[in-house]
């Protein structure tokens, strides 16, 4: 019922998000007292599992945390471990350009696969008024067919570079097991060129959706690559590494992560909650990347962003679908640049010898910064591991946003409010399976 002063809205299982969780909203005397994202998927204890294992194993083991962003886990782990072992560091073993190009290319493919699925098959139905992609497909056949073809292009790129489309197996510490030939990569160029144009057109389409009003005041955090460390052909939007920057002026190397961010337990979630030191919430993900790195987009993509109303910072989370679409077009564009500049390395990998120490690594997973830290002993045995996925970092900010959103829409009846709350949660494309290492909505109106 609408216009009641005391309400409890409960969504017991959130749809079109990855993993299992619920949402609970308490309203008393016309004010929202509490919003909780209740993540009840069991904790997975990956960090504990890694202790005592070889430094060679985290890329393969942590990739299993998530089926849609395994490359992010592989490359965050590799960044951290190679920094300990002196590979790719200023004084260490240099990484050939070709290896660095392939890593970035693999990351482009993962963004395409993840973003396309979320934009077109999971999130667009919210804006077009359908329960899901199947109901939407009958009326928007061309859109769904385009999505399937775009996703296929991403999958093929993952297969050629990573060995297979899900859980790539070709990547390792120091590089790859096999470097693809130029001819193998160039064979994909015609389809990638089509995909770049199709993604740009799709961006214009999603930019025309109706977006509910909601402005965020969170700190945004993202990586920002150092331009002189990019491989040939690459432009500077963040993917496989960079410095840690925020909209509040932080600009530090990733080694400074523990000085500025931490995780804490909360009673209603099996996932840790990320906060800034000092207690503030923050957001990672497409909007954060865009707001901190829009100046790094190549001209054609920057023009597209301006054309679709993203000339300024994006602070309405409902417009995150537009940013994802811009990033999808960027990923295709960047893939084409990397292929054009690709130099097949003489050897697919450089040797990585174990060394004692602690290493930090982070990359921009589709959902935001994914941070890894490993401590090794002399023999390369892992004595400590820390993994901070994007959804854990975003949870407190999502709850704050939902509190504001529900407060502003209490005039809606429970069904309409639940629909919009679920849509709001999907703005963040949460991956509960990653964070437990979500959704039921309950609104309690008293």
């Amino acid at each position, binding site marked *: 019922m609408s216009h009641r002063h005391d309400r409890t809205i409960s969504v017991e299982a959130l749809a079109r998000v990855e993993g299992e969780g619920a949402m609970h909203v308490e309203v008393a005397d016309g004010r929202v007292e509490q919003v909780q994202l209740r993540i009840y998927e069991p904790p997975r204890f990956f960090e504990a599992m890694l202790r005592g294992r070889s430094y060679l194993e985290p890329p393969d083991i942590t990739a299993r945390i998530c089926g*849609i962003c395994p490359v992010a886990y592989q490359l965050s782990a590799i960044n951290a471990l190679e920094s300990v072992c002196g590979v790719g560091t200023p004084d260490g073993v240099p990484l050939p350009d070709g290896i660095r190009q392939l890593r970035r290319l693999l990351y482009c493919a993962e963004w395409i696969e993840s973003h396309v699925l979320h934009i077109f098959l999971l999130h667009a139905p919210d804006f077009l008024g359908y329960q*899901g992609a199947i*109901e939407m497909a009958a009326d928007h056949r061309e859109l769904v067919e385009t999505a399937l073809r775009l996703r296929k292009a991403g999958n093929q790129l993952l297969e050629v570079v990573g060995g297979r*489309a899900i859980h790539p197996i070709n990547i390792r510490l120091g590089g790859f097991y096999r470097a693809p030939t130029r001819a193998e990569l160039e064979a994909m160029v015609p389809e990638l060129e089509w995909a770049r144009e199709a993604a740009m057109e799709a961006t214009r389409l999603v930019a025309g959706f109706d977006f509910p009003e909601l402005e965020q005041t969170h700190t945004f955090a993202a990586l920002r690559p150092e331009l002189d460390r990019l491989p040939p052909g690459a432009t500077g939007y963040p993917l496989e590494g960079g410095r840690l920057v925020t909209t509040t002026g932080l600009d530090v190397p990733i080694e400074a992560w523990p000085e500025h961010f931490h995780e804490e337990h909360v009673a209603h979630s099996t996932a840790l909650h990320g906060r800034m030191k000092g207690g503030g919430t923050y957001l990672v993900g497409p909007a954060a990347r865009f707001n901190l790195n829009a100046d790094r987009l190549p001209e054609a993509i920057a023009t597209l962003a301006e054309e679709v109303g993203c000339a300024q910072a994006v602070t309405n989370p409902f417009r995150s679908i537009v940013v994802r679409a811009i990033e999808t077009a960027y990923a295709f564009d960047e893939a084409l640049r990397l292929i054009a500049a690709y130099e097949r390395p003489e050897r697919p990998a450089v040797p990585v010898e174990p060394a004692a120490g602690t290493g930090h690594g982070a990359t921009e997973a589709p959902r935001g910064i994914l941070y890894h830290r490993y401590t090794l002993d002399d023999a390369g045995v892992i004595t400590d591991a820390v993994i901070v996925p994007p959804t854990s970092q975003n949870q407190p900010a999502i709850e704050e946003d939902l509190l504001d959103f529900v407060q502003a829409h209490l005039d809606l009846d429970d069904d309409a409010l639940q629909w919009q709350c679920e849509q709001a949660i999907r703005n963040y494309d949460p991956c509960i399976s990653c964070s437990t290492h979500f959704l039921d909505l309950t609104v309690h109106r008293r």
Partner: protein
Amino acid sequence: MTVLVLGVGHPDRGDDAAGAMVARALDGMPGVVSRVVTGDPSQLLTDPLWDTADRVVLIDTVHTGHRPGTVHRWAGQRLLEHLPATGGGTHDLGVATTLHLAAALGRLPAELTVIGIEGACFEVGHPPCRPVRHAAAMVAAALVRGLDGVAAGDLLEVAARVVDREARTSSVGAAARRPRTSVAWSDH
């Protein structure tokens, strides 16, 4: 006549290999194009043969509580009623949701058969259990018998491929080759 045989599942995850075993056994048979689908099933819809093959047979491992090795067969106009869409997560759409999506797009094959082989063990690195291997062989043989222009030699070739697969996957090869007399088929 072209028959598209799609074996869905991971070849190295125990009983999940059933679909791949059937697809590989039928590879190269007259009129057959077989594929092993290990990734997102929605990619089936971007296969040109999905729309042009005269017949599509999709084999996957299922887990419904029946005895391992039980073969389920869904076909006909009411096929989708027996295979409810699951909605999908952010990782893939799943087979049933993909079929519902195909129907919504008006792209269900004119003749589609879905075969589910009941599995029980899905451990990474384990071979499929004996009842599942046997069921996969029976399914492959039944599909070959339904093909046009198949000679006796083709049947033997398929049988040899399944036996070879069994010999490579089982630690007790001789026992694995011991014939069983029946497989429970369940038409829906």
